[in-house]
């Protein structure tokens, strides 16, 4: 099974061949490295930019203006904060030009903690991103969804932000991507660059097929009746695991994988909360003006009187960063134990 980085790579390859992708670029995105997580190895339109995020986003917008289909990368979302003005432009020129131009671009960036990344390789970005208008925002929790979301992102005529949970980059999927060789060694030999000198290496792409995960459609990752957990990205597998553990205690918990963060699948969330009467939103971003608070507010608006207990957010502590030593990360970003505890508490709270 492809891992998440390989899935992105396969999707980008499909995009180059079939969906008009003209440029895949960013810092260290081209040869020889092919991206710090190898997500862009061997792609024919991949190239290395100067170390300049403002140039990257400006170039992407310009390519989109000139009829191209750019997929830009910011190496880590931790380094995206000097271009928020440009992201706002990408998101508002369609509206400000009253539709004269639109911006078919994809921006991908790794997010989240879990790799001992210290203060500047652990940021989450969905809270600020969802406050920037005009972007659609997706975040997969597994390789197959990463593939399907990336194809949808490429096909979308509006700017799409593709957040890649960095702690899951090497995680393998449970399901094959259509066209992927069944044996993962085979895949590895076909598409992973060799160690050492790569100057003569060429990938041998498997015949991957068109497979889309529609933007805006969440998925019930585990069905249940007693508590609705809404999450995405790295927190999804933790939440599903916790739900399985709690199932042994007789608690039946529903876990929704948003997949699209904006516009998020409110109908699915609402239906679930109406069924369970309880809501827990989980993410790893810091907790003040957190996107999860938006989810809660929307649920209040639509289903306040269905709530049996107070809805909650489990998120990162409001500290200036995720410290390097494990003691910091463990105590400021939700961990498996915290997820389990919050789910148990909310599922069993007296209404």
């Amino acid at each position, binding site marked *: 099974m492809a891992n998440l980085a390989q899935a992105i790579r396969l999707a980008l390859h499909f995009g180059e061949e079939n969906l*008009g992708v*003209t*440029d895949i670029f960013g810092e260290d995105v081209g040869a020889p490295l092919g991206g710090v997580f190898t997500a862009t190895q061997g792609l024919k339109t991949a190239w290395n*930019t*100067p170390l*300049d995020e*403002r*140039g990257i*986003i*400006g*170039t*992407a*917008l*310009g*390519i*989109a*203006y*000139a*009829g*191209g*289909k*750019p997929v830009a990368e910011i190496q880590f979302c931790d380094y995206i904060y000097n271009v928020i*003005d*440009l992201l706002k*432009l990408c998101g508002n*020129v*369609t*509206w*400000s*030009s*009253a*539709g*004269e*131009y*639109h*911006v*078919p671009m994809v921006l991908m960036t790794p997010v989240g903690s879990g790799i001992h990344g210290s203060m500047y390789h652990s940021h989450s970005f969905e809270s600020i991103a969802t406050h920037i*208008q*005009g972007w659609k925002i997706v975040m997969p929790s597994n390789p197959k969804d990463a593939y399907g979301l990336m194809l949808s992102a490429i*096909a*979308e*005529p*509006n700017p799409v932000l593709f957040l890649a949970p960095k702690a899951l980059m090497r995680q393998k999927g449970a399901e094959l991507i259509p066209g992927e060789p069944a044996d993962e060694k085979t895949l590895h030999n076909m598409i992973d660059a060799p160690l050492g000198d790569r100057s003569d290496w060429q990938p041998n792409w498997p015949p991957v097929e068109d497979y889309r995960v529609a933007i805006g459609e969440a998925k019930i990752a585990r069905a249940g009746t007693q508590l609705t957990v809404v999450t995405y990205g790295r927190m999804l597998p933790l939440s599903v695991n916790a739900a399985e553990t709690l199932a042994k205690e007789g608690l039946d918990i529903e876990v929704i994988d948003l997949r699209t963060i904006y516009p998020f699948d409110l109908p699915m969330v609402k239906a679930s909360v109406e069924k369970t009467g309880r809501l827990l939103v989980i993410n790893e971003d810091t907790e003040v003006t957190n996107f999860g608070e938006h989810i809660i507010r929307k649920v209040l608006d639509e289903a306040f009187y269905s709530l049996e207990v107070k809805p909650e957010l489990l998120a990162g502590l409001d500290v200036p960063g995720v410290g390097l030593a494990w003691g910091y990360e463990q105590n400021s970003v939700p961990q498996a134990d915290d997820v389990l505890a919050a789910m148990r508490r909310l599922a069993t709270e007296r209404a």
Partner: protein
Amino acid sequence: MPATPWIAPALDAQLKIAIHDKMALGRATEEMMIRMMRTGHGYFWIGGPGEEGFNVPLGLLTKKGHGPDYDYLHLHYRSSATILAMGAEPINLLRQMRATATDPYSKGRNFVNHFAIKPWNVVPVTPTIETQYTTVIGTALVQQRHGGDGLSYVTGGDAGSAEGDFWTCMNWSTRPGRELPVLILVTQNEFGISTPANQTQNNLRLNERANGFGIRNACVDGNDPIASWHALVEAMEYVRHERKPYCLQANVSRLYGHSSSSGANRYDEPDCLGLYEQRLIRENLMTQAEIQAVWDKHNAQLAQDLQIVIAEPMPDKSHVLQHVWHEGPAGN
């Protein structure tokens, strides 16, 4: 089917007169918009009176059309004379000034002189100073790969060049073996709102900043449309055919101050129009009466246009959610 190669028109008597016509149109349009602002037919004015001597030649020398065979324009908010020289309808500027629902550039959303004209590769003018120096990289990159003689040009003010985006533009357009066909323009009017250039710039020839990148550069008197024409021809020929960047500064006047926020009062700076008219008379290309007739023609037309614009509908609630998303297929 590649577009025909671009050949700059010869600067003959007829063209010199046409340049005047467009300069006067630019000025008359801006002055009409200043009046609109004063009489409650607009909230805010910002524009280009004082830059016509440079902006009209720029517009006339633009290879106008859609797609990478043609020039891409990343404009500043003082570029009215450029797009009028290219053939834009003055009434559309008045519409944006009044923020009517009929404003074709922004549907009443953006300030005046914030254009977006896809058939002519005029990408949206941004209110954020200097970001256009980053987007120009992208269109030029597509053109570099596409071939032909289309170029991308970008223009902005002197103060704005302090933003690092100016650096980004020079750096990305000189990557070895990947040089870009970008014409980097700067208009030096020696002010950023109220701040005099000599407080913030150690060399008023900002084009010389490009020396750090080995980018060919020059400075021209933007109050002189003939000198501007020649300087632009030289710069554009270089960019079109060498497929490398060039940086050109135009020294210009800011005749009505920064914007309506600072009064939009007339200042005593060299006026490219008066200077050019004297020259046309001196060179026996036009008489005073002919010049007057040009102004009368434009003013009469603008007065008519204003009546039309005033009667047009304003945006309402139904407009707010339009164009948040593009619905059709992707591709500009």
